[in-house]
């Protein structure tokens, strides 16, 4: 399998007044296409910082970062925006939907910043993604009218709309109860099955158990990097919200 991203000796140092905080201290990591990586570790170990670096939201103090064959570590702000909009999808712990927008409009946002011409076909794609995550009957709802799990599903649909090379998720189930968490994880693992590369930060073992690879961090460095031979798989029918055919048409066919 080809690697989709590769970081070499990546470091992030924050300077707080006189103190230097070494959030990430030289991490080397390669993620292959189609992998499902769980980034684990205690609080303050640098997981989020690393994920932000991978997400091109932050710039490393040191090291190299190649994403989809491009050296992104030293890119300009505008170029980074382009990279985010072409290659990356984000799922946040707080869902981060825009309250003024409907479900479909929220899903549409990344397309807007790709400079895509919004048309019936793009709207249909957004509607399709909403149906994929089981919100086909909530297209015109505002985030306030949705439960946490539903909001997170909108966020997942949004992260898929630009057909990204990697989906980055920072504690996607952190705000959800275990049943809803299972639903979300089921959805993510389905997406991974369909070929999506996912990197997910979590500190819960049973969430991490869905991933194919578990990377543990401590104090800004990688402590262990283990392949999970038997990732959790969803029992078919446990969640009715996912429609396999739709998933295939929207996700599989999109990744060339």
């Amino acid at each position: 399998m080809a690697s989709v991203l590769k970081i070499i000796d990546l470091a992030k140092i924050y300077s707080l007044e006189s103190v230097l905080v070494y959030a990430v201290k030289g991490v080397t990591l390669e993620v292959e296409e189609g992998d499902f990586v769980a980034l684990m570790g205690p609080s303050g170990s640098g997981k989020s910082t690393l994920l932000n670096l991978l997400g091109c939201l932050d710039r490393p103090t040191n090291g190299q970062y190649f994403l989809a064959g491009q050296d992104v570590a030293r890119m300009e702000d505008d170029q980074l925006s382009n990279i985010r909009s072409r290659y990356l999808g984000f799922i946040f712990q707080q869902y981060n939907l825009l309250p003024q927008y409907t479900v479909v409009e929220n899903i549409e946002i990344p397309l807007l910043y790709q400079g895509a011409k919004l048309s019936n076909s793009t709207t249909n794609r957004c509607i399709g993604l909403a149906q994929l995550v089981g919100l086909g009957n909530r297209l015109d709802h505002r985030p306030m009218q949705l439960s946490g799990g539903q909001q997170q599903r909108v966020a997942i649909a949004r992260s898929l709309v630009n057909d990204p090379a990697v989906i980055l998720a920072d504690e996607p189930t952190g705000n959800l109860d275990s049943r809803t968490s299972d639903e979300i994880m089921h959805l993510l693992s389905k997406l991974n099955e369909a070929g999506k590369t996912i990197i997910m930060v979590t500190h819960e073992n049973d969430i991490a158990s869905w991933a194919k690879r578990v990377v543990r961090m401590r104090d800004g460095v990688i402590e262990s990097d283990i392949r999970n031979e038997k990732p959790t798989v969803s029992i078919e029918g446990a969640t009715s919200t996912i429609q396999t055919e739709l998933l295939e048409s929207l996700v599989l066919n999109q990744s060339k």
Partner: protein
Amino acid sequence: MLIFSITAILMLASLFACILIWDKGRRSFILAVRSLWLHRLRAFLSVLGIIIGTGAVISLMAFGEGSMQDALEDIRRLGANNIMVRSVKPTDDAGSSKRSYIAIYGLTYTDFDKIATIPTVTRMVPMRIFPQEVRRGYKGVNSRIVSTIPDYLDIHNIEMKSGRFLVADDEVLLRNVAVLGSELANRLFPFEDPIDKEVQLGTFFYKIIGVMKERSQGGVSTEDVNLDVVIPIATARVRFGERIFMRSAGSRSAEKVEISQITLTVSDTEKVRPTGEIIRSILENHGKADWTVNVPLDRLEEAERAKERYKMLLVLIASISLLVGGIGIMNIMLATVTERTREIGIRRALGAKRRDITLQFLIEAVVQTSVGGILGIVLGLAMVYALPFFAETFWDARIPAKVHFESITWSLTTAVAVGIVFGIYPSRRAALMDPIEALRHV
């Protein structure tokens, strides 16, 4: 200036068209409208400066333009090339303290001849105007005799309703003929054609040869010109003399006035004012203020000066409201940006460039100021139409107003400009936020 208006409108229209055609722009526009609607009171208060400023500018412009138009209307009616020289009764001076029986004052035929020597004067129409009852049988109407020459018709733009006006022969032959004002004709001959009938003026009867069309009053004089009766000046000189006896409050007084008014035409507009000056210098010889020289063209200058003053006031009001409005917008935009920090982070994460964020908030600021501008225009127009109406109904005062189209385009352009200028800083501030910091914002 019309070109300016058209360009401005085209520019504004294309600006908004571009925003609306372009997906990102349209989304920002819709979002702007939604969030403004969500905080409508706040948005309204923050553009109040712009609303009031625009309203004031629109209405002041309209009132300034109105008085200008009024002056132009006057000039059109009185003639831009004309000068009116009038006799006026001097205010109590040393001479009249002797209680002379006859008050002698005003323009004389000597003055007339002197003025006639001015080369730029192409036409002179003398008038002798005095109050006189016009009788027809038992009916009497208090009227004014205007005795003059045939040129009066032309110089005062009089149109005939029926019959003819005075002709040269009427003067030469000292005919007893009269031309009636429309209202006078109505009162004396309510149901008949007055032509060839007779009216009595003083001791003599005059044949009616024509009736004048109704004329607009012209604001200044209190007499109703439509009650005038016009007779040949030569006839009047013979029949009435130059002395007028008047009875008022039991006492009798008399006045001797040779000519009440001379309306004269100057060869070209350029020479009107200098000619007026020459006439004044001729009349200075009277040694008393028993005359006035009225140059309608002066009204124009006066109105222009008033308009200039209005413009200064306007600039002042506009700049103050610009500043107040701009600060209001900046203030509210800064608050909005802070409130929506997380939204900015989310958009940046989803691929928005800095300029996308800048533009989004800029559009929001411009939408806000444009709405403010439009509300201001509505307020201004309401004032333009309401104020003269109330002034007329409650204080019987006339406020001329004419909406200046240019002021509307100006206001709109300015409103958009204020949105851009004062929206830039908050928008840039939003755009320069660190995406992670913004995402972490609660």
